[in-house]
């Protein structure tokens, strides 16, 4: 059985921080599709549109009928381990640091035979459930897991390296005033987070909800305003080396279309939602990226709570939507910049939040702070990149993936 993750000892300040290495990063274009699936937490492979043959390794023409229409679909993840080996020698620095490394050959019920990582609890002959996970190179890789989860299975070192599990880690939630901040704090602590820092902007402006944090163990409220560079610089100088997971909850919303409006609230929306994100990345990103291999409580993820309307705006909230689209673009650039370090950028897309006064006129369904907290923790545990939370977000995201042009016409052009 997997050993429970130890509590990390105090850092030895005389020891240099281990520079992160990453597994092999290069993939063919077709193989990048594995990463698209892993980013969403799906087990999917190419399935020939003509003869239904499941393809692996990813390729450009069907292995049965040469057809080139090979869409990615969810497939049966179960299989059996045919053979296993324990690798003890590798010229690749990432694996060399982690020897010995177990590798298996699994026959999927869906058809193909795959090379894969093995969870510590599975071996030759076992029936397994395959998962596609993002490794530290940000590439989709296969890992064979037990059919039934076990108590500490997340603590298996191979699996933990593919997740951003908050267990034993320290989290910075950037805006304590955000509607989901309290629920998120509780969910993270329940998931085993060692400490939660909560950023409080404008402490000079009292807010009654602050009292809910009083007396919470392993929780600290610290000054942080994402619109103020000096605030970020100051906090990152103090705790930057202790932030393993950052969850950006800072958000500014005002209703309004484009015309009949001015740009002052739009500016505030970009200042908080877009530039605030940039400043956080500038202030905390480099230190986090350098600590991805820093023991049990290594840095793991930069999480953004984004509105799904960054993909397709609600025209009644045009500036807000634009700022979210811009923020999403920033996260995409960040993913590229964090590639070599293994730091994951996770986007949690939500719709209107239940109880948020700025969306009070919208009809249900709305997403609750508890649901957002749950989805965020699940995204961290799964090591995902794209998480949709709530019915609205799931619906918009799916329609956007399917046909963005059609979605635009549905929202703006009289779809019934």
């Amino acid at each position, binding site marked *: 059985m997997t050993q429970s993750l130890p509590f990390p000892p105090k850092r030895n300040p005389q020891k240099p921080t281990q520079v992160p290495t990453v*597994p*092999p990063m*290069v*993939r*063919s274009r*077709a*193989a990048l599709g594995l990463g698209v699936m892993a980013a969403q937490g799906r087990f999917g492979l190419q399935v020939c549109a003509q003869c239904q043959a499941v393809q*692996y*390794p*990813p390729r450009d023409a069907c*292995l049965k009928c040469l057809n080139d229409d090979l869409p990615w679909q969810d497939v049966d993840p179960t299989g059996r381990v*045919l*053979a*296993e*080996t*324990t*690798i*003890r*020698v*590798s*010229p*690749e620095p*990432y*694996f060399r640091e982690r020897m010995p*490394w*177990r*590798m*298996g*050959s699994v*026959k999927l019920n869906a058809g193909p*035979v*795959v*090379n*894969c*990582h093995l969870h510590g609890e599975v071996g*030759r002959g076992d029936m397994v459930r395959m998962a596609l996970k993002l*490794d530290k*190179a940000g*590439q989709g*890789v*296969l890992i064979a897991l037990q059919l039934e989860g076990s108590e500490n299975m997340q603590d298996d070192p191979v699996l933990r390296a593919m997740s951003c599990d908050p267990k034993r880690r320290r989290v910075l939630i950037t805006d304590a005033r955000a509607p989901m901040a309290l629920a998120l704090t509780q969910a993270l602590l329940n998931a085993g987070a060692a400490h939660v820092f909560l950023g409080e902007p404008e402490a000079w402006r009292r807010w009654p909800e602050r009292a809910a944090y009083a007396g919470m163990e392993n929780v600290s409220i610290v000054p942080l305003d994402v619109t103020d560079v000096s605030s970020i610089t100051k906090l990152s100088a103090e705790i930057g080396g202790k932030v393993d997971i950052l969850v950006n909850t800072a958000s500014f919303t005002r209703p309004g279309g484009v015309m009949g409006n001015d740009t002052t609230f739009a500016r505030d929306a970009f200042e908080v939602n877009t530039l605030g994100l940039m400043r956080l990345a500038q202030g905390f990103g480099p230190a986090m990226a350098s600590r991805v291999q820093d023991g049990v409580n290594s840095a793991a993820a930069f999480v953004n709570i984004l509105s799904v309307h960054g993909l397709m705006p609600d025209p009644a909230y045009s500036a807000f939507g634009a700022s979210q689209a811009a923020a999403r673009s920033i996260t995409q650039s960040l993913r590229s910049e964090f590639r070599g370090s293994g730091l994951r950028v996770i986007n949690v897309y939500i719709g209107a939040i239940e109880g948020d006064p700025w969306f009070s006129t919208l009809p249900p369904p709305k997403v609750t702070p508890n649901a957002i907290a749950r989805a965020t923790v699940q995204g961290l545990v799964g090591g995902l990149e794209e998480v949709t939370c709530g019915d609205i977000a799931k619906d918009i995201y799916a329609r956007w993936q399917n046909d963005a042009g059609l979605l635009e016409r549905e929202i703006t052009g009289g779809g019934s």
Partner: protein
Amino acid sequence: MRRSYEGVVLTAPVSVPYVRYTNETAHWWIAKALREALAIIRMTPQEIDGLSVSSFTLAPDTPVGLTQHFGISPRWLDTVPTGGACGVAAMRRAARAVQAGDVDVVACVSGDTNRIDSFRNLLSAFSRFSMDATFPYGFGGPNASFALLQDAYMQEFGATREDFGHIAVAQRANALHCPHAMMKKPLTLDQYMDARMISDPIGLFDCVMSCAGAEAFVMMREDMAIAKGLPFARIASTIERTNAFPDDPIQLRGGWAVDIDDLWAMAGHGPEAIDLLQTYDDYPVISMMQFEDLGFCGKGEGAEFVRKHDLTIGGDFPHNTSGGQLSVGQAGAAGGYLGLVEAIRQVTAQAGGTQVENARRALVSGFGVINYDRGLCSSAAIITGANA
């Protein structure tokens, strides 16, 4: 019935002694083998009208670049990318071209360089499927891929590490008679068993040592070889297959099993007539697989076969008489030539210290290119002495 290889012969077996690491390029090593072969057949480079090259480390060149590099103008140029199967593959293509009269003299060369970072560089760009679907999983290289294969083989057929050890030990004994073998010390079964594991169940002495080196031979018409007074070998039969048994979940049999009856039929005899066997020995388990798939024993009986036979030069089943890659070293694609070149020496009585008495018929088997999870290329040929 396939056409015989009448009228075409193999001459000038050349092995350029391997080194572990070199600063020289593949071009340099190939040129060295070519020069030596030309000296034996007493021709100038410009008289070569056919060239077949196999190499993994010529980039950014292909053999086309070699023609201008070497100042030759062949009317027949081939590049054979089938890795460990390339010797036999190169030979059978060149043989038909000579028979058809498209070319008179084909120099067949294989060579590779080996620098400090060659192994890692070679692996990382080895094949698309390896890049996508094997190396991200521990980057154990071929050692890990074959460890999976051996793991399955051992479970399926009950072979033990000792059985594989016997093959390695016998080959090392053979290598001690080969002056240019990289491995110069005897190997006992205890040493084999006690050595450190590389990728369980594959241990240190299951693995070949990557080197730089080159091998060559020359194909020509029989009448030309006689006119020049060159010792020569004939080709009795050949087979080749790529991506055999694609639906086998794991590779417990190689492509030889598809066409092996064809090999014996073309030769006109069975395994009992073979005097020595050169298998492609990237790992002892693959040699064992070849014993089975070539017809020397039944599937799954390889371990028992090894226990029952003496695989040394003087034994009842001489196998990999110069020591094979396991003891001589693997000079990249030249590993695909090693067995064939040694077989030519054997059947032309030029093998020196590794000579098997009365060697008349040799079976050479090739295997190569772990594109993803199995060796895709297989080849085999029966080579005979001039008077066999």
